[in-house]
């Protein structure tokens, strides 16, 4: 076993917007599968700040929460000029 560092951005392979609320999670909310860059794995995560219409596959990058709540990471669409660094976010936002 060895530790691997994955890219912090990737290609959104697919996504869905869920319209059934869950405790602590008002509907609608979005989930997606992301193939991380540099031949990284296919991972699953929440999506936030999605535009109303989106063609697959857009680029997304990970945001790491900082208050210990789940989920502790999620993905947002990449903006022109953004770099490949981890963003700090507020998990409660």
């Amino acid at each position: 076993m060895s530790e691997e560092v994955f890219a912090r951005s990737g290609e959104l392979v697919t996504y869905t917007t869920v319209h059934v609320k869950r405790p602590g999670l008002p509907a609608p909310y979005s989930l997606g599968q992301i193939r991380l860059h540099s031949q990284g794995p296919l991972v699953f995560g929440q999506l936030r700040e999605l535009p109303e219409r989106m063609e697959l596959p857009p680029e997304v990058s990970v945001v790491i929460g900082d208050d210990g709540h789940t989920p502790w990471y999620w993905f947002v669409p990449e903006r022109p000029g953004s770099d490949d660094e981890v963003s700090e976010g507020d998990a409660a936002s």
Partner: protein
Amino acid sequence: MTNADVEVIGVGMHPFGRYTESSLKDLNRVACLNALIDAGIGVRDVQAVYASNAMGGMLQGQEMIRGQSVLRDIGIERVPITNVENACASGSTALRQAILAIRAGAADVVLVAGFEKMFVDDRSRTLDALESAGDLDVISGTGLQFTAVYGMRLRRLIAAGSLTLDDLATVSVKSHANGALNPYAQYRSVVTAEEVLASRPIADPLTLLMCSSICDGAAAIVVARPGVVAHREGRPTVRVRASQAASGFTSTGEEPGLTEICAASAYEEAGLGPDDVDVAEVHDAMAPAELIAYEHLGFCKPGDAGALLSSGETSIGGRIPVNPSGGLSSRGHAVGATGLAQVSELAWQLRGEAAQRQVDQPRIALAHNNGGWLEGESAASCVHVLERIESWN
């Protein structure tokens, strides 16, 4: 006939639906007694039981010995009872264990009992239980629901041009039309494509009328070594040609999927191919998942699922009818019982006892049942192939 031969000698169900006044024991009692009567045997003829239930721990608080608890109600005690949980594939997994027990010589007559009660006081408890069919270390707090898993799979296929929204609506219409013919089905109303598309959104692109829902029900199967139980006069013989299982993996999205892997093993064991299948019950927790199964089971080439559906070949009167029962989305999806409901339907089809939904003289039948979710792939899959031995007159 070989030592590996196993026959399905009895099947039975409790209708799927909402039964607020019925307990797990009530549901299981009806299914098991129907299966034993169908097999022409009594409870004392049962040498072992595999009991399938997925959610009784979280929903009824019966975390342990669920099988022993419900089976003592019908006088099945002392014999080995093994409890099986494999999410939505629990029933077919239990059936496979029963088949393996007979092949191993551990028993000659085995009952497989599947039961589930998902309607409880608080719907969010049922959704929590369903969510536990994924790896909670990964999905906890994300709001993952099965509808979302299927929504993501289908959106990808629509984006690639392999399927259209109309395909999703059309297969849902077919599912409801078949369910309307099935007295065991949860939903027995026909719907139009317009109604399907206009029903409320659940997880894009899925709408309410495309999805299976919370469900109560039970199903049971009796399997036996040939010749051990007296053959019922005039009853066609249903024999197991293949029984295969496989588990999921962290998918790259590029390799063959779990269903493809499991189906390939089943076809190899049966010495048959997808062209030999005359009728199939496939895992369509959301009706459009049937379209994905067409491709993964080899019923059509990748990208041709919509065309196969449009051709009518998967309708009850077609070349290879799929989900004549109405499938999970219309017959219902009482999780622990689903795999056994599929095999019950196929036994009735092979014996010519499926009444209004009877397909034309099938000889080979295939059941496909998946369960749980790992990132990008189901966690469990079972494929069974059944054969009618006697020719049709």
